[in-house]
Each structure stands twice: as C-alpha cells, then as structure tokens.
C-alpha cells in the first residue's frame, strides 16, 4: 500500500467510524440477546447489564419451548423461506437469462412488466390475493405463503440478474454453442456460475423480508399448523400483559437460522456488491 493511504491517524479514524457503526447496528440485537437470558425484573431494572448469577434465568426459553409449537413454527418458517428462495432464484434466473440473451418481439416491454413489481408493493393486492387463496382452497397452507413470497421476490431478482447476465461475455456462450452445449447447459454450467455473486445478493435481499414477514402469515395462514416464527412470537405480546422473557427469547432464536443462511451467502454477497468496482 502507498504511504498516502496508510498513515496511522487516517487508519485510526476509519476504524473508529466503522467500529461506531458496528456498535450502533449491533446494539439492539445484543440487548435482545442479553436480556433474553435474564429474569423479568432484571430486564426492566438493568436492561444493559449482563446476566449474573442472580439475574440469570432461562425462563423465557423454557416458556417458548413449552408453550405453543415453536419447533413447528420454526419448521414452517424455514420451509417457507427456503422453498420461496429457491423458486425465486431459479425462476428469476431463467427469466433473466431469456430477457438478457434472446432477441424477441416485446423483449423490453416484458422486462419492464416483470420489473413493475419492484415499484408496486404486493401488499396492495392483499384482498385480491386472499380471495384467490380462498377460492383455490389454499388458505392456511404453506403453499399459499410460498406462492405469494415467490411472486414478491421475483421482480427484483429478474431485474438484478438480467443486468448481470448481460455482462456475461457473448463469446463464451457462443463458444458453448459451437461445442454443442444445449441452451440449458449454457445456462446452468456457464452463465449461472459466473453470476453467482449476483445470485447471493438476490438471495439475501429476498430471504430477509420473507423470514421477517408478519403480514401474510397473519392473513393467509394463521392456523396453528402453519404459523411462522414471527407470527408465533405474537402470542406473547398481549394487549395488557407482555411476556417479555418469552418475546426476547423467541426473537433471539429467530435470529439463528437467518444468520446461518446469511453466513452461507455473505462471502458471495460482498463480491456481488463490489463487483465491477475492482479490476
């Protein structure tokens, strides 16, 4: 590195800013996790203190695990998120490939149409969606949620992936065609690996809102069998009494799966965000 960019004071300043930002971003999460291990009185008296031998308590976790079917809720959330994510990625990538690679009448129009969903929130159509689900008998099924989330995630996925796929060299695809690869092989073996960072970016941006969503589970699948974690945690939030131990524990637990998924994608994500900036 050159002298000019490695001076000590500058690097201290840069790190200070980054550390400050990290603290601000992580603070609420840490408060939630700390307090989930404390008993109720301690949560309110000393919300910032670490649990000690006196205040330490697993009561929240015990409530969560005893009451309701939290394992089932987790399972529902995971199934819905993972399946929707997979569908968004596969269909999004395929649509993006078609838009980026083939010239056909109405290509641009189709692209705009598919991107429209980015600007119009899907919740505006809640009533129609509910009617549709009732009519097709899908209320209180995970399928209903998966369908809605797939529709919700596709526009952005198509938009981002098409842009990245346009940048994959034509020569490479043509070389594949000369060697007799089918369009499917070209898509799966040549193009997809090259847009992996973009796929990871899309995956993260798709996954988080699905996992956190309260709206559609509440409306489309509020039954005990199909509840998601976010919805399940609501039972502890009463109008008059709130079981804070349980709420905090449930939230802490809910962080784990997204964290795992995020860690899987994050290496690729960073590459996706900085792609083009380097090199």
């Amino acid at each position, binding site marked *: 590195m050159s002298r000019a960019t490695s001076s000590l004071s500058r690097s201290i300043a840069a790190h200070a800013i980054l550390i400050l930002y990290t603290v601000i971003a992580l603070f609420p999460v840490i408060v939630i996790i700390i307090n989930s291990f404390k008993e109720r009185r301690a949560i309110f008296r000393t919300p910032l203190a670490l649990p000690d031998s006196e205040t330490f308590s697993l009561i929240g976790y015990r409530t969560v695990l005893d009451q309701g079917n939290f394992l089932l809720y987790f399972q529902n959330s995971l199934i819905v998120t993972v399946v929707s994510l997979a569908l968004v990625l596969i269909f999004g990538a395929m649509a993006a490939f078609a838009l980026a690679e083939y010239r056909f009448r109405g290509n641009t129009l189709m692209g705009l149409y598919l991107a429209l969903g980015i600007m119009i929130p899907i919740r505006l159509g809640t009533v129609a969606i509910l009617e549709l689900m009732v009519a097709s008998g899908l209320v209180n099924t995970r399928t209903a949620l998966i369908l809605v989330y797939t529709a919700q995630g596709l526009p952005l996925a198509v938009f981002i992936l098409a842009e990245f796929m346009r940048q994959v060299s034509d020569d*490479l695809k*043509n070389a594949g*065609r*000369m*060697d*007799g*690869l089918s369009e499917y092989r070209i898509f799966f073996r040549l193009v997809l690996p*090259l847009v992996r960072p973009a796929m990871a970016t899309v995956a993260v941006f798709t996954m988080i809102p699905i996992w956190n969503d309260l709206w559609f589970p509440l409306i489309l699948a509020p039954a005990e069998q199909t509840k998601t974690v976010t919805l399940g945690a609501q039972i502890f939030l009463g109008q008059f009494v709130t079981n804070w131990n349980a709420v905090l524990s449930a939230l802490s637990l809910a962080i784990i799966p997204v964290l795992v998924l995020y860690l899987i994608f994050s290496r690729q994500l960073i590459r996706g965000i900085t792609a083009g900036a380097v090199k």
Partner: protein
Amino acid sequence: MGSLKLENIRKSFGKVEVLKGIDLEVEDGEFVIFVGPSGCGKSTLLRVIAGLEDATEGQVLIDGVEVSAVPPAKRGIAMVFQSYALYPHLNVRDNMGLGLKQAGSPRAEIRQRVDTASKMLGLDDYLTRRPAELSGGQRQRVAIGRAIVRNPKLFLFDEPLSNLDAALRVNTRLEIAKLHRDLKATMIYVTHDQVEAMTLADRIVILNQGRVEQIGSPMELYNHPGNLFVAGFIGSPRMNFIEAGRLGESGKGTIGIRPEHITIDPSSGEWQGKVLHVEHLGADTILYLESEKAGLLTVRLFGEHKFAPDDILHATPRREHMFRFDEAGKART
C-alpha cells in the same frame, strides 16, 4: 472437404441492415481474410457462417450443402473468439475436449486428440491448469487448440490476436500460418491488422458497410485496387489522394500515389513542398510534406534520412505507379 459458398447474405438487426447482400466463394484449403473498418459487419458475417446468427436472407452452403437448418455444432466448423472465451470452470484439457465429449466421441480418442493438439501448440505443461492460471498468449493457444481438436472442415477466427502484445502477435501469426500449412484446412480470419491480412491470406475480402468492396490476393489488391476505398485501406501509410484537376489532368477524378512510390530530391522535382513532420522508424523514414501543387503528401523513404521540419524538398511521383479513379471512386482502367 471444406468449401464455403455465401449467396446474397443479408442480415438486419431491427431496422438496421448490417449485411447488405454478400456473395463469396471459398475453396477447400484456402486462407481467406476479412478486413474492413470497425462496425462493417465482419463479426456478424462470421457468426452467420457459424450459425450463431440466422441470416435474414440468403444461403450459406458448406461443401455444397445448404446449412440453415444445421445447428452450429454440427456444421463441422470451429471458431476462435477474440476474447478467448475459455470455460472458466474447466481445466485446459477439458476445455479442449468438451466439444468432442458433447459429440459423444470415445474417451481414448478425445485424450489422444487433445494430446496431439497440445503438443502442436506447446501446451503440454499446462493441461491441468484452469484458464485463470494462464497468460494471455497461453489462453489464446488453448482457444486455438480447442478449435484444432475438433478437426473441423472450416476454421473461423475472429480477431484472434488483437488482445496480444506485439511480439506475441508475430509469434502466434507464424504459428497460425504453420497450422494452415500442416492442417490444410479452410480458414476464414477476421482482422484489423494490415500486416496480418497481407502475410497470412491467400485472398483478402474487403468489407465496407456490409458490402464486399473487392476480393483478391494481397498483391492484386495492392497493385490493382478497384476503388478509392480499397486503395486507401490497403497499404500503410495510406495512399496519397490528389484531385486530378490540381495536377492539370483532363476530367474530374482522383489520382492516387502510394507513399513508397514518391522520390525525394532537395534540389529539383515536380512538386515543391515544405516538411511538416518526420517520423524515423529505423528501416523507414516517413515524411509529411505540404506541397503547393499536390497538397499534403505522405512519403515513405527507405533507410535513415536527416530531414527536419521546415526543410524545402521536391517530390516526384513514379508515373508507372500512379492510380487513377473516376468521379465515383472506381478505378479507371
């Protein structure tokens, strides 16, 4: 086996017509080079021949068979791309062998053909490397190897050397010339580079704005350019063009004289002029001369000459090397 015939090939992208009726016959074993300014449709024509684009109109015949319904991989063609286009996830051996594998050749045969090709190109030591671990020149050789392995009737090269540095370009050019002699295959080659075109080609096809301007051997084009465009395109530095009227010749039109066909004398000659700039290239000296009678002239002298800007010199064209073009730019015979 490997003749090619193009009949009235047209190609439009939307409303823009890129190829405007191309007719061409290439014989078996010929080395034909397409040259032309950027954007004139060379790559598009190559892609049409390969089957990567469908022609809007016209026919492509390979060995006398119309191939519009034949997919690229089944046309017996191999193509080398400007950007190498190696598969990033495969090592050199698999890159070269993929086409054969797709065609269902037996493993032993693939192995043997890849080995032969890699020996030919000096790639033996790199067979297990990925493209990312190779230098530019090595990648280009792998791309050529991938073409050779398939043992095609027809090779298509789209500016294969333009990403290489000057020294490597000369080496690879020699290799391609040798390859053509050894394989005796038909080759079609696109380039911007005059020297490549003149040194490699049996015949050169000059394209301009989607049309063929002239087809001929390098020396035919140099000695008998059919029109102003070809005269200006072949030869470096460019031919000098002078309005016929300025030289007192009868009729309108243009006179062309190549820089190497002008002699210079300090004391006497036909056109007096002042030196604007001198380029010393060692073997050659290029003079830019502002003359009263003929306008700005480029003159190429052999060897070293100690001229400096503002010197007054006299230029004399060698009459037997003058070209005459009519008003429309066609060569007068």
